[in-house]
């Protein structure tokens, strides 16, 4: 697991404390019952805090699974 993935895992673990490590990597809106719009907003804030980035409303479409969050953050790193 890359350093970025490990940090994303930490963010997911903070917002969804009941998930075990394996579940976090497969996590998505459809697999987690408690992942509602409030959880999305909270996850965005925690990720912004952890990575020092801003995630705009147009990027919320990526905040639906661990993999897409990872891709979103990778593109930010590349474009930075």
């Amino acid at each position, binding site marked *: 697991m890359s350093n970025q993935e490990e940090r994303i895992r*930490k*963010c997911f673990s903070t917002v969804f*404390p009941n998930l075990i490590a394996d579940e976090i990597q497969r996590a998505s809106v459809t697999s987690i019952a408690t992942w509602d719009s*409030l959880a999305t*907003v*909270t996850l965005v*804030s925690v990720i912004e*805090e952890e990575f020092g980035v*801003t995630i705009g*409303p147009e990027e919320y479409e990526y905040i639906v699974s661990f993999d897409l969050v990872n891709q979103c953050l990778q593109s930010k790193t590349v474009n930075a």
Partner: protein
Amino acid sequence: MKLAEALKIVQSTPSSNAEKFSVWLACGIFPLHLSTFLAAHLNRRIPERNTEIQSGVFGDLPGNLLQLKQSNADAGAVVIEWADLDPRLGLRRLGGWGPNVLSDVLMTAGQSANQLLQLLDEAAKSVPIAVCLPTLALPPISYQPGEQFELNQLLLEKTLHELAASAAGIANIKIINRHRLDAVSPSSGRLDVKSELSTGFPYTTVHASIVGELLASLIYPSPPKKGLITDLDDTLWRGLVGEQGVDGISWELDQRSHIHALYQQLLRALSDSGVLVAVASKNDPALVAEALARSDLILPRDSIFPVEVSWNPKSESVGKILKAWNIGADATVFVDDSPLELAEVENIYPEMECLRFLPDNEQATYALLHNLRDFFGKQEIVAEDAIRLASLRSSGVVQSEAERDTSGSFETFLEQLNPELTLSTISGAGESRAFELVNKTNQFNLNGRRLDIAQFRSALNRRDTVSLLVSYNDKFGPLGKIAVLLGRLDSTVLTIDTRVMSCRAFSRRIEHKCLEHLFESLDVSKIEMDFQPTQRNGPMQDFLSQFINTDLTARPLIIDRQHFMNTKPDLYHKINEVSYV
């Protein structure tokens, strides 16, 4: 505090068995992270309680205030933003910012402020409330350049200040100090436009954490410290009295030592509000006596008790002072310019707050003055604050008489004190003093249990409650209101849940007289004590041990009337007034 940390704290709340502490958060914004931060900061203050935050609907502060009033919450947190006074002052509504709407905005804001004040007044009758006034800058409503304070903006500010001033005068309402907020949360870092537009939550997480922290500190304040021990040389005054002589030390503007005068002025203000002030100095006692007799000293000599001057380690002097005050190290602040002395005292008294005075850094010293104010901040100054020092001096006389008694002379001494007790129920003006005693007394404390204001009032309002507030006076002068008792009466048994007495009142057998009086006036055959040992309540344990036939682990812990009457020492007190049953 970061959001991730706040979430972790909130998720690690104690088990569901822990007593709940519920807060109703009333605001017009979507509370989102503010709710999380408020819960986290409260959890840090009261980790043993299960903090629960409830909130109402978005955009309806008046409705949420009504709900707060009807809730059974232990406390309320009210967060007002400009949009609550007029939606056109927020970012989510488009009612116009042009010159033609400004007077109407002003009028609406005035009406809203009046309505909010009424609702706050009503809600505060049933629940203590912490209020945060608008923290965000006004939107660009003014047609004048931003550097200029425009009349309508000033009138809006005036409306808000009038609301704040009226609300601050209502019992049960506390308002966040805007100056403190400005110092810790720069105004340019408060608004999160993206969050406001996408979710209705207008605060950055940094600002939300600070607002949550300040609200938590008003809802559940730290107990104020009781005593301050100060060094002399290069602390109370500039210079070394042993080197420069009594006339060589200074605290004046033209001597560049004015910061010491400000420190003295603060100590005087603290002393006037009931804080104990003592001196611990490594010096020549005769020189110090001469220096403290200087008529231009801003802190009067009489305000200082005791003055411990010797060449022994500072911790020894501090120990003597704590003994004279009869308070714990955790209730005390020690101020010295020497890091070595601070470390030596801190090593012996790790619970003590040891603060460095930096005589050559006026900025840091001025910050220290603010810091000291915070440590000793209290809600109100009561009559007992004015007589605390005098009663401590007289307590010293009583204690030393008790300690050196060898031939029964202490009995004569006690009798000749002409002790008088005044007993009353806890109500009206006595309520805040009783609440203070319950929450700051450690040694003569039945179980160490602290009560928040809601629990305290609930205990007072039970149908079967017996409450007692005890005042004491003798030939040395009054001690003021020094003891509190809360219990429940069930035919022939009185159960006492809360019993505390100020350490200033020890050695006068007040505790014995109160118990005797309860047995006789309530005509009960036994008194059940809800006792729990704590690390600090040794005096209570000693007292109970005299009157029970079992050991202190027995439950229920019962004092039998006959046994008490046969065992109690002679009591010389006159009871002036009884109005508690």
